[in-house]
């Protein structure tokens, strides 16, 4: 049973007042739309990534580093990482909204956002390191 609907003797606030609550937050469109748009963008990006990994399987480390150093590849990788973790944050927020209620909701949301941001940052820096690494083949 959810709290509002329980016939609690200590709550005499009218049902209409509870239904109206604090009113509309005047937000939600952006979250909903970005969740969908990032999902759509991730379809080609993920497909591209899987194909590239299959192609690179068995290559030497030098070849992979060189592959990651090409601007096209590093741009695609960066887009993939940023959108993946952005989408992950939006999706996990929805799950927290569904399953975590009351006081733990805010700390759970903040923890999720912080962890997602740090993992995403780690991925982005890894890609940047590849992108900006001096080509070993050229110097060799």
């Amino acid at each position, binding site marked *: 049973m959810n709290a509002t609907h329980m016939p609690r003797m200590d709550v005499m606030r009218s*049902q209409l007042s509870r239904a109206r609550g604090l009113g509309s937050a005047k937000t*939600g469109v952006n979250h909903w739309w970005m969740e969908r748009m990032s999902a759509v963008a991730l379809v080609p990006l993920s497909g591209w990534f899987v194909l590239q990994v299959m192609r690179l399987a068995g290559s030497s480390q030098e070849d992979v580093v060189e592959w990651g150093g090409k601007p096209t590849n590093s741009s695609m990788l960066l887009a993939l990482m940023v959108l993946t973790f952005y989408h992950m944050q939006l999706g996990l927020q929805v799950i927290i909204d569904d*399953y975590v209620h009351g006081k733990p909701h805010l700390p759970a949301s903040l923890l999720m956002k912080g962890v997602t941001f740090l993992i995403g940052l780690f991925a982005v820096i890894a890609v940047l390191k590849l992108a900006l690494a001096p080509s070993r083949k050229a110097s060799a």
Partner: protein
Amino acid sequence: MVEFSLPKNSTVGKGRIFPAAPGAKNVKSFGIYRWNPDDGSNPVVDTYEIDLDKIGPMVLDALIHIKNDVDPTLTFRRSCREGICGSCAMNIDGENTLACLKPIKDVKAAVAIYPLPHMPVVKDLVPDLNGAYAQLRSIEPWMKSDTAPPPDSERRQSIEERAKLDGMWECILCFCCTTSCPSYWWNGDRYLGPATLLAAYRWIADSRDEHAGERLDALEDPLKLYACRTIMNCTQTCPKGLNPAKAIARIKELQLERKI
């Protein structure tokens, strides 16, 4: 946090068995949720064995027979017995529907009957829908127009404008959809639920209404509207064959349309 099990005082026990009269040939078993707020005990499922040859074809016929001839303490709501009042909404064979529109023969095994899910129970099959009614009231389900109506006639609509209300005006507010929605179970204190959102869109789509913007403002909320996860139980369960999920999708489209 989310609750994964029923609280102790809600665990359902086994109840009494009311056997059919000796000699009855066409017997079907009805397992019905019973809870009485006055006796302080947990809910139970009572079993009634009913001779189908003696009653009409619908689940409501069986319930009325039980109340009249077997066990007068059984409590449920009913009125029109033809699917237009919405009173006999309950969970039959695992699906929310109207007892008066649900043929007994559609249920293969014993007929399990429970009140609408996840609402406080008043008694037996009667749920407390006051919260859901207040949510409906909160979206102001009436025409709001600043233009005065013609002095000598009603407000007029083209045939096309009127057709936009089809699939929405038929809603009888039985709340089968709202109480079938997991999002409503989780966030029913803030999520408005499919029945109320269908009613909201009915007024947004009405060509005579002049407050669509204010209506969209009031719905633009992460939970009031966007707690809809497109689970589609609402459309699946609607005993009138309506599509509340589509109405919710239309509201989301309009919210987006005015932003981009």
